[in-house]
């Protein structure tokens, strides 16, 4: 059974698609020369940035598949984590709309091609949940089963919602029972992860046109999401300037990375990272955006809590970050850094990095520029 790639363009690589449909290997240079398809790719990115689902009605499968892949290349080149996630989100949303309309067979097919181990149970599961006042039996029916490994992999951002937690599911023989609408919802997450994975996997070839196009895309990103590259990597902007990720102590870095991945954090973890970053002077806005990745994110509550920690609400008391001992007793310490407070680690690391940088600067210019 074939998958409609115009709906799910991430399920085929550009090369495979070109070979299968046009019998030739893709020539990226000439594709990038094709104004109309490049424009389409940029439009696709623009939609995502503006928070709209790209509307591809009336376009050919070729247009849709190729423009998607060119958009991915451009975004990879731009190298903004925010844009990657934004694009993946809205493209997944677009495909999700189609997925919801598929019949059971093609729904299952799309998910299988996406790498999800999904099946129909040998016998449909019907759970008798109760009776109406008139004595009629009421059943809940489950049409599909999905291997539990895939289930926990793709539902991690939903765990904040009780009904998605494994403990509240019907599980048997290694499979989780799931309803059709839930399966489609899970599919959307699979798509998101797949598209994000493409950014990690693809390798860029140096093409001049790509560079200039990427510059154009960069202009489209709203100011506040532009990541400044501080000491050679991703840095965060805060009130007092930058938070340098490389200098974060191992304990905070772990939480930070888990957050970017969309892991569900414990209460203590949230407290630890929020108070730590607040102590470095980041603003509420920045923290809210970081927490946005969490599965149970709720903007209003998050904002309130952060302002509370920052001492802008309630008693006006500002909460200070845990010291190493408190981190340890909560199981959050992951190394022996020889310091008493994670902040100490950060600042001494920062000094080290600065020194290294200065040293680089004062060294003779590289042979290339000297000629």
């Amino acid at each position: 059974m074939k998958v409609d790639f115009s709906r799910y363009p991430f399920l085929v690589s550009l090369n495979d698609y070109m070979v299968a449909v046009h019998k030739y290997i893709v020539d990226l240079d000439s594709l990038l020369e094709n104004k109309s398809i490049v424009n389409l790719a940029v439009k696709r990115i623009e939609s995502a940035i503006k928070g709209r689902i790209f509307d591809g009605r009336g376009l050919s499968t070729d247009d849709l598949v190729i423009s998607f892949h060119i958009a991915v290349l451009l975004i990879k080149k731009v190298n903004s984590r925010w844009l990657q996630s934004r694009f993946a989100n809205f493209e997944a949303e677009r495909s999700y709309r189609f997925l919801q309309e598929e019949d059971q067979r093609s729904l299952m097919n799309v998910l299988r091609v996406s790498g999800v181990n999904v099946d129909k149970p040998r016998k449909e599961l019907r759970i008798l949940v109760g009776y109406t006042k008139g004595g009629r039996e009421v059943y809940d029916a489950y049409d599909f089963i999905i291997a539990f490994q895939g289930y926990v992999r793709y539902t991690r951002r939903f765990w904040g919602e009780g009904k998605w937690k494994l403990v509240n599911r019907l599980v048997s023989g290694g499979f989780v029972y799931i309803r059709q609408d839930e399966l489609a919802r899970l599919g959307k997450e699979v798509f998101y992860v797949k598209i994000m994975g493409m950014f990690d996997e693809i390798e860029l070839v140096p093409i001049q046109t790509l560079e200039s196009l990427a510059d154009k895309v960069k202009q489209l990103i709203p100011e506040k999401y532009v990541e400044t590259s501080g000491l050679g990597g991703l840095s965060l902007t805060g009130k007092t300037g930058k938070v340098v990720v490389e200098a974060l102590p191992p304990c905070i870095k772990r939480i930070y990375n888990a957050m970017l991945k969309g892991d569900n954090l414990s209460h203590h973890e949230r407290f630890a990272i929020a108070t730590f970053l607040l102590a470095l002077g980041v603003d509420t806005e920045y923290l809210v955006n970081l927490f946005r990745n969490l599965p149970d994110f709720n903007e209003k509550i998050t904002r309130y809590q952060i302002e509370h920690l920052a001492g802008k609400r309630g008693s006006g008391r500002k909460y200070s970050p845990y010291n190493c001992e408190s981190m340890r007793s909560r199981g959050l310490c992951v190394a022996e850094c020889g310091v008493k407070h994670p902040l100490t680690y950060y600042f001494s690391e920062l000094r080290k990095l600065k020194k290294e940088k200065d040293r680089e600067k004062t060294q003779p210019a590289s042979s290339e520029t000297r000629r």
Partner: protein
Amino acid sequence: MSRHSSRDPREFIVGKYYKIKGGDLVLPDDFRSREFAFQLFNMKSYMRHIVFESKEELKRWILVKLPHSAFYSSAIYEIPDAPTMKEKGWSGAELQLDIDVDHLIECKDKTYNPCKNSSVGLELFREECLEIGLAKAYEAKNILEKDFGLKYIEIHFSGNRGFHVLVKDRDLLLLEGEERRELADYLNGTGLALNIIIPKRRGLISQIPQPEEPGWRGRLARWALYLHRKEAISVSFEEFFWSNLERITQHASIETDAQVTIDTTRLVRIPGSINGKSGLIVSEVKKGPDEEVRLDEFSPFKGTLKIKPLCNMEVYFGGNKNVFSKNITYKVEGNIGVFLLFKGLAGLVYSGDLIV
């Protein structure tokens, strides 16, 4: 012993054990891809990042170092002796559940301080707790088999406070920490929402779950049936179910330590090795869930040991309550003698008659 006066007397006993049983250490087939780690007596930190090419090499090493505790990693690495995680190349980890018997609700009233009126403080548990813990371990194994379709599950006595359930199925190896937490939560009932699994809807008279249903619905129904029968209460099953739901849930929960399960770089005590916290042997449990288990079964020591207790105490060991007075020299059986010595409850007087 006098020659090694700088050595801890416990090292001598450890040496005695490994000289005879050092070949009995049970290693996984892929032990060359595991990191080994050891804790030595009177040393806080671990020796880590060690690899062995053969069992003989391991035995030789152990006979030289006489370790307090011996471990291999639950994780499989490309380069197990590399010093950092990054360089090691993590390529999967077995799943581990940890059941500490003294933390179980059913065992709460069965822990005790062996020292009477003394500043020497220590918490031990009565041997009944082992049965309670083992039953939990079997329950976990059962659920992992039935609900998750897993097949290669071992139950190990940790040598001290409880049981480890080790799941070796290959298709679990790559689960990430947070995904493993979902499994632990499933076993423990953490985050269980009764209003989700037994929905109450408007205009609906809720039906209680049936024992053959999957997931927590079935688990609750089975436990309810069991408790209803056991307590022989005259109320109807249905009434019993609704009015005891919380208690039923508690019984049906496993109570494993989730922190252990989510750790994908955990150390596993080597079966057949001695646990330096107790002088007992880490071992795979072959007994069934309803059989009696006692601490002395896990001691390899016979013969006698002369010891001097450090407090007036009562210790439950080998099915008996053993009473000792402070500072009197006793000649006791090897198994309990070593236990008291390793627990720090007694000093050693003479170990020449100890046999393995």
